[in-house]
């Protein structure tokens, strides 16, 4: 008995070698799928199966000489297809897309030569967005075999590694790149601010008095009042940040409500309201009514500007799923666009705040000019008139 046990040990020496050095990886097969650009119902596929695996499973080396030739592979083409293809199922939206072989080739991988089955999967309808792939090849002969699936569709690659533990996967081949989408909306938002003079003029109107303090209100709109320069930069900057934040909060609210379809005001009303908001903001610099809480003005009028932003997104026919990404991105973009204008301007304004040029030339005359331009917009928008020469100042 003792001797017998020792012999058993010798027979199974394989266990003794400390760390077996394997020559190459275990068995893999590769399935590549692509949408047929010419036929929306069709996927074109390439299925690479190792000749070693095929030989083990069904015997490809007909003359048993230990060398598989192209002639032998060709002779086994039908047998290979009959054995391999039932191991792969492509389905989606309740329909199966039957697989038919279309050609045979050879591919080289790091661990040897592979038979290539070129095939098509033809669905009854358009290839579904959610593609389910079920993979069972070689499951009975090698539980460590893996099917490595790659789907190339609409500029995206999605993939999965399938085996007995997880034989199926569902790939969303229509999945857009959310990050890219987000970035594109950030840029849209920035652009919308930079190319929208009405928003810019509104912000500018709020910015101009931020480096000054109104000591005495003017008695008439033409008297000018008594403006003193602020002493320190940061309190003024902080005040401006509050203004911009108030504006952002309110316009985000109406932008979202509008894009999601909860508010729907005629664009003529919205655009006129925006023009009116610019008049009010600029006029407040000439004849200050609100001097302490400028952010409240910004907050209040932000609602109407938000509705204006929404019109920029309305033409984009957004898919519902992308809504959050696009709204978020657009808002971030609007914010970046605002800050990029406001930050340099307030520094400039702070530098020249003590000059009469700033108090009179910029604050008073500038605000009058803004009122004038915005009034023309208001007339143009409210009455749907075309005013000659205003084209260069018309929001795109």
């Amino acid at each position, binding site marked *: 008995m*003792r*001797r017998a046990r*020792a012999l*058993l*040990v*010798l027979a*199974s*020496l*394989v*266990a*003794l*070698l*400390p*760390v*077996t*050095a*394997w*020559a*190459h*990886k*275990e*068995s*893999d097969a590769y399935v590549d799928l692509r949408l047929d650009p010419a036929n929306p119902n069709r996927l074109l596929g390439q299925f*690479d199966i190792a*000749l*070693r*695996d095929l*030989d*083990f499973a069904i015997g*490809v*080396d007909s003359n*048993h*000489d*230990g*060398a*598989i*030739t*192209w*002639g032998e*592979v*060709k002779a086994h083409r039908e047998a290979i297809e009959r054995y391999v293809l039932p191991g792969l199922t492509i389905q989606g939206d309740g329909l199966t897309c039957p697989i038919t072989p279309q050609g045979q*080739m*050879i*591919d*080289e*991988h*790091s*661990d*040897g*030569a592979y038979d290539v089955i*070129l095939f098509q999967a033809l669905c009854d309808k358009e290839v579904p967005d959610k593609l389910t792939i079920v993979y069972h090849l070689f499951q*009975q*002969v*090698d*539980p*460590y*075999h*893996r099917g*490595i699936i790659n789907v190339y569709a609409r500029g995206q690659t999605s993939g999965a*590694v399938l085996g007995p533990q997880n034989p199926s996967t569902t790939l969303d081949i229509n999945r857009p790149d959310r990050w890219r989408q987000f970035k594109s909306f950030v840029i849209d938002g920035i652009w919308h601010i930079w190319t929208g003079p009405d928003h810019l003029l509104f912000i500018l109107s709020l910015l101009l008095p931020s480096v000054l303090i109104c000591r005495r209100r003017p008695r008439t709109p033409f008297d000018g009042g008594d403006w003193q320069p602020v002493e320190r930069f940061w309190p003024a900057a902080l005040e401006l940040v509050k203004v911009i934040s108030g504006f952002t909060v309110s316009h985000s609210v109406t932008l979202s409500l509008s894009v999601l379809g909860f508010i729907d005001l005629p664009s003529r009303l919205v655009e006129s309201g925006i023009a009116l908001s610019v008049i009010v903001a600029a006029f407040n610099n000439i004849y200050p009514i609100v001097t302490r809480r400028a952010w409240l003005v910004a907050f209040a009028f932000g609602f109407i500007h938000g509705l204006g932003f929404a019109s920029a997104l309305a033409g984009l026919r957004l898919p519902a799923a992308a809504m959050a990404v696009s709204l978020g991105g657009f808002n971030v973009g609007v914010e970046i666009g605002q800050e990029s204008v406001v930050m340099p301007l307030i520094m400039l304004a702070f530098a020249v705040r003590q000059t009469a040029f700033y108090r009179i030339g910029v604050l008073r005359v500038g605000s009058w000019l803004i009122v004038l331009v915005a009034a023309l917009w208001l007339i143009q928008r409210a009455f749907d008139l075309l005013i000659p020469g205003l084209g260069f100042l018309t929001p795109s």
Partner: protein
Amino acid sequence: MHRLLALAGCLVALPCLANQDFPFVPSRDDMVLQTVPSITDARVRAFAALRNDWSRHPQDVLDAVKLSEAYLDYGRDTGDARYLGRAEAVIAPWLARLPPPIPAVLVHATILQSRHDFTEARLQLRGILARDPDNAQAWLTLATVEQVQGDVGPARQACARLLDSSDPLIPGGCLASLDAVTGHAINAAHLLAVLWPQAKAENVAVQSWIQGIQADTADYLGDAAGAERHFRTALQLTPGDNFLLAEYGDFLLDQKRPQAALELVRDYSQSDTSFLRQVYAEAALGAPQTAADTAEMARRFAALEVRGTYAYRREEAGFVLFLEHDPQRALQLAEQNWTVQRAPQDMRVLLQAALAAGKPQAAEPVLEQLASTHLQWPIVVNLADKVHAQLAKQSPASLGQKHP
């Protein structure tokens, strides 16, 4: 279109098989695409008989185990990892039974061990030993698992359990391989020399196994000539043995003999481990194909990663360190590898990566392992000294203190 290009490429340049990146249609029917096991090989002929027995006696677990073991042995001899899965498939129905028959679980544990799934292998082996405390094969495999994971105490106990068998060769080899890595390499060398005459009566696999341990032992003792002699003898006994090729190749590279290393592995470039040594040798020689072969090796590692195989992290860490020159990633791989296996070569690569990455503290687990095992291998001892020196330079105040 690319098919046409491939075809055109093939017609112009033969042989077509070299480094194809896209599918092609071979130009001639007699073109050999792949070598596979041939019936001129006695082991392959034996498969047919074993498969026959297995399919005729579906209720006999031993027929399944015999076929499974034959696949496993063949896979190990040729380095073809596909045979692990094939061996597993044969015993799978038996493993599903409750309780699974012990011989089937034993093969399963060996497969798990071979795939570097040491945790699961140990679990299975402990399960067997709970049911059959005298199961020699289970103790032997357990000793292997414990040793690979650097748990020399439990490994020694497992080897000792084998002494019950009347044949001292196996427990002797088992204990000698442990002595060799625990500061008793001289004892190991003596013991192996005593065992060798007895081994000569056994099959070549056993002989080669003993010679392999002798080679390692000599190397750990710094006896290059002895190591060389034993490696050569082992390879004469089992020519083309993938494990020996890698070990002997590493030894030659360490001896600054890249030309000899290249000649050793050149004919086995289909093997990932041999090919890796080939690229190391090419790099050492400044051969023009180094860059191309480095890229090819990187593709092979990528192919392993795609399927979720991480058993080669030790090899990959060395590759990333010495050929891709990315010490930070190499250190990451070496640390991940250390969580799985802690043999001398694993110690070595973690020390090398930690030094190159300028993070000597990352090698502290190795220093601890070295302090507890007293491994004498000069290569590892020298690296550890360098790590100690770097640590002392970094924080002289904390000398002797344990880092968190």
